[in-house]
């Protein structure tokens, strides 16, 4: 009765990622803990890029398979999450090579309907599509910084390592990206002030 989830038994609550990654070379439980800590970050990253659950699941699966296979190559010189999201980013790039997503030009200025669907799930789906659509209408660097920081919950410094930029540059990308979303897309109309 063993799955990877079962192996995680709260025995590493205080151990940092880098030490866990080192231990994961020979200890499956350490890898299970790392997997649990970062599954959601990786999945959200791929979901917001692909826009559909099936592709996001495929890419998430590939990311963790690659991480497990290459765990020996993680040297601990930077945060583990940055290393993992680097893998995710490369797999995402490979996925999109040859299948460039196309978004109609008028979608960016499409005004959302004021009457919300009664079904919450449907509304969430619409909001997700709206956000994903909006992110496709701003520059790639800015969108990638926003996705890493808001969906995968990386710090500016960690996102910088994935993007090959300084922390200050990531801050600037985030700021400009948020401004673009606010002024150039319909996303600002969807803002929920609760």
């Amino acid at each position: 009765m063993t799955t990877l989830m079962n192996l995680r038994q709260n025995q590493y609550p205080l151990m940092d990622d880098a030490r866990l990654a080192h231990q994961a070379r020979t200890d499956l439980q350490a890898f299970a803990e790392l997997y649990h800590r970062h599954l959601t970050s990786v999945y959200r990253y791929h979901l917001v890029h692909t826009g559909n659950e099936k592709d996001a699941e495929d890419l998430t699966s590939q990311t963790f398979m690659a991480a497990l296979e290459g765990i020996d190559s993680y040297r601990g010189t930077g945060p583990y999450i940055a290393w993992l999201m680097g893998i995710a980013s490369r797999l995402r790039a490979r996925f999109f090579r040859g299948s460039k997503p196309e978004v109609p030009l008028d979608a960016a200025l499409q005004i959302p309907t004021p009457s919300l669907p009664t079904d919450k799930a449907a509304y969430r789906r619409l909001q997700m599509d709206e956000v994903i659509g909006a992110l496709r209408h701003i520059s790639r660097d800015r969108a990638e910084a926003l996705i890493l920081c808001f969906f995968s919950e990386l710090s500016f410094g960690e996102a910088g390592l994935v993007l090959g930029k300084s922390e200050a540059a990531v801050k600037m990308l985030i700021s400009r990206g948020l401004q673009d979303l606010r002024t150039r897309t319909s996303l600002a109309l969807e803002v929920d002030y609760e």
Partner: protein
Amino acid sequence: MNKNILNQLSADERPVAWTLQATAEDMRVSPTFQWNLETKLMDKAKKQIQPKQGWHTNIVGTVGWALAALGAIFLLSWTIRSIVSGVQPATNETPTPEMSFEEKVRAGNICAGPLALAHNFSVFVTNQEKTVFVPLDEQNTIGELRSFAWSSNGQLAVVGNTTGAGNIYVTDSVDHPLQPVIPNSELGYLMEVAWSQDGKQLLMWSVQNNTIVYVVNADGTNLLERKLDLQLFAIPQFSPDNSSMIFRGANASSSGLFEVKFDGLQVRLISPLVDDESGFAWSPDGSRLAYVEMDRTLGEARLVSEEIATGNKSVLATLPTPKGSGSSLPESANLSWSADGTSLVFEFGRSPTDRVIYLAHADGTEPIQLVTSAYAPTISADGNCLAYISNKQVFLLDLTDTITPPLLLADLPTGRSIAGFQMDKLQWSPKRP
């Protein structure tokens, strides 16, 4: 969201950031995908992560191979001699193909017996094939059904309410109509009901006066009212010998898990650290009481098993919680034992969407996480199935082989409700079919 990032944003940037955050939080990993991925990773990891072998391991390996080879030669020789000495007549038996978990469940070979669900203002029971939840009061003649309780002998008591009056109904089989025990009572707004261990009495309480409990025979006779010097926070449970009841409550000086004797109403505080209304359960044989203590000082939640005869306590599991009084604690809920008394399940976390279902062992071995983002766990009477709710769906998990992905039993049925009312309860009938 990463709060450090939010703090570094200007006021006009924050609203869009919140929208991104809200969207991100709605992106949840499906339990089925998670299960499949973990299985794949597990297979890969087993091949990849091998413990380093020393010289002695190699020698043992070599000797092992040699012994295996000798064994094979002996077995071959014995087989040849058996064939020569007498050929056995062939049988007509053909090997039975192994059934999948789903096939076994649908056929009723395992996890048999009804699974009941309280959701919104209705109570449902699974059909025999476990493909759908059937409403108990299909014609909606009774009104709002809020909760239910199985007796040890498979009777189902259901709590209903109409225009402020509480009703209790009982059926001895889910195929039979509900029979009123206390229709249109004067007891007030009843929320829950509990059975005595022998299935002969029912215990009730009303939210309109939480210092009174009512005891009634299952046939509706002999209704007794008992006034307490304590406030009840949730439905009490009968003790195994029916001499007392146990519940979470409070008096003027303390709160926690209390025991009150029916004879004389003496009060005993079992533990002041029990915070959750469904965070305690009697073992099936009645010899042990398990409960979850929340220790703010140490910053941990403890699953404790108390031996009733001796008073000995043992800690079966500990989970980290925030320390001190400043932060809110996670909840533990729906603690229950397996029918053989060897393990317990419970959920732990802040909200139903971030709860984790744990399996603890009565012998104190390390607990394991069974499912994340799930709640309302309950183990079937044969011990083979864990039922739980996740993402508005009810799943069955094969406890004998958790490599098998969970089986989707059904979506949570829709029904009447009001905003803010949520009492999803899931429970197998304890009676073996």
